[in-house]
């Protein structure tokens, strides 16, 4: 089969992104315009501001992706766009733009699931990687332990019952005065702290050993901070950051290893924004190597929200699974993995 070039667009949260990917594996360009500085003023992503900013940047970002790939639209075989899950107003910008380009150029279109994109980031990092494998998806909005049975075929082993892992990072970072975005700030501060200084609880979920809960952990951190303040004790921000981070990574690693054991996986991948957390990468790597499991971790640029991963997923959706989208494609903010 001739090489297929996919133009991909992603606007589900606060990154406006476009990329060109060949055959789901090779990145020709991966342009990300982050709005993070804007949202930092508000302590988190403001949906209306995110939507406005996407619309201001989207044409430039797409053009840049084509230019960096040294291609024009005439060279593109398929357009892929994230249509969920995410912020509805933000998603709509990418969806409307992608549909309009498809309408005016005649290039076929496929809507892509954002989490599938995160999983597919592994195909870009490891061109030889093929399903089946287990994948832990951890980001600001999602925490899923997934069995990737085949391209686009998933079994969700566990997911969070309340906060996503990344959400807990943001909330705790705010509480200890590190601000937004919490993940990178806690990661950095934790390097100067003692991860065993404070023992925060590791939640066990009744009913499904692979489900997660992070709201209890977040409350435990807040209670600890309140307690210190009531007793007039000063807190060590690096110790709190390191101890909290260890509590999160312990749970993620423990769940992943339990699944590896029960299902006999030989390969484990991680994906999503929290997958660039250095403590998680190190802990998971060690745990995998002890069990003789191959560990896959995309580079941080592919863990953050980006369009290259959407380009990879779009390739498999369209050329392998035969999925198509027409001009009625809409944003679906609560789209679940495996749903269309």
């Amino acid at each position, binding site marked *: 089969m001739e090489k297929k070039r996919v133009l991909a667009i992603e606007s589900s949260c606060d990154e406006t992104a476009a990329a060109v990917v060949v055959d789901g594996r090779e990145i020709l360009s991966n342009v990300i315009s982050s709005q993070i500085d804007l949202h930092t003023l*508000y*302590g988190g992503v403001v949906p*209306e501001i995110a*939507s406005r900013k996407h619309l201001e940047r989207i044409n430039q970002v797409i053009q840049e992706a084509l230019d960096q790939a040294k291609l024009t639209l005439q060279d593109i075989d398929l357009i892929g766009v994230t249509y969920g899950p995410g912020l509805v107003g933000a998603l*709509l910008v990418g969806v409307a733009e992608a549909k309009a380009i498809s*309408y*005016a150029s005649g290039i076929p279109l496929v809507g892509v699931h954002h989490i599938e994109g995160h999983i597919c980031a592994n195909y870009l990092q490891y061109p030889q990687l093929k399903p089946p494998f287990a994948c832990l998806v951890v980001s600001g909005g999602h925490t899923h332990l997934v069995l990737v049975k085949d391209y686009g075929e998933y079994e969700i082993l566990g997911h969070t019952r309340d906060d996503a892992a990344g959400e807990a990072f943001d909330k705790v970072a705010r509480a200890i005065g590190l601000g937004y975005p919490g993940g990178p700030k806690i990661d950095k501060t934790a390097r100067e702290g003692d991860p065993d200084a404070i023992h925060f609880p590791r939640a066990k979920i009744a009913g499904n050993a692979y489900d997660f809960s992070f709201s209890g952990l977040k409350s435990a951190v807040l209670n600890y901070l309140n307690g210190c303040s009531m007793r007039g004790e000063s807190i060590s921000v690096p110790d709190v950051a390191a101890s909290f981070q260890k509590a999160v990574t312990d749970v993620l690693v423990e769940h992943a290893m339990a699944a590896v054991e029960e299902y006999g996986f030989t390969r484990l991948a991680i994906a999503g924004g929290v997958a660039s957390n250095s403590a998680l990468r190190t802990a998971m790597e060690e745990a995998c190597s002890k069990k003789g499991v191959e560990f896959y971790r995309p580079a941080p640029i592919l863990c953050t929200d980006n369009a290259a991963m959407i380009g990879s997923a779009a390739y498999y959706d369209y050329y392998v699974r035969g999925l198509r989208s027409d001009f009625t494609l*809409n944003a679906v903010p609560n789209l679940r993995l495996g749903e269309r």
Partner: protein
Amino acid sequence: MTIIALDSSGTVATVAIARDGRLLAEYTVDNGMTHSQTMLPMLDAITKQLNLKMEEVDAVAVADGPGSFTGLRIGCATAKGIGLAIGKPVIAVPTLEALACNVYGTQELVCPMMNARREQIYTALYAFTQEKGEVRSQLENGEYALEVLEDQTAEDVREWCHVINSYARPTVLLGDGADDFRSILEEELQVPYRFAPLHQNRQRAGALAMIAMQYYKQGKIQDAAQVRPVYLRKSQAEREREARLAESGTEGRSFCPAP
């Protein structure tokens, strides 16, 4: 010269294709469904009926605001996407100017109104005039120019009635705001007025195409990448932040709300 015109600023989705002096197709639907699902299929349908080739299109016109924030973004993103794909400019027309053109040539003042929620309307006041003078938006189609008496604004309905009254001239009212606030208007207006009939009282892409042709001739076009809606309102988070900053008297201090 051929243009595509689209407007998803309000409750209707409306698309048109016009060439020189002719409206080749117009498709307007008011079915309460999201414009994201309806508008582009509508445009695709008329494109196919006309067997229109994209090479024939010279520009894309869009109503760029005010209106529903999401609706404006769907319309603008669609125009920007088409513009990017075919390398042609976008003609961004104020929503209320296009709406006013539904009653082109009337001797009355024209007051389009869109329900802006929070007890407000997006509105403006126009006159079609043959006199020379302070004419900010030239509409030299035949003998009339569209004179902007009051620029687009978000305004309380009762307050706005005082503005209309101050002109002391017969006025035609149109748009969903005129319907939704009918009783207040009937109570407050002290000038002769009428409500536009059904074929004129909502956004029509045909009218948008007509005024967009004039904009094009006047060189009022934009690169698709530069197009951004005219929201007339900041986001709630921005308004609240500004209020906090004004209250505390500090500028640029970052605010960390309690978790």
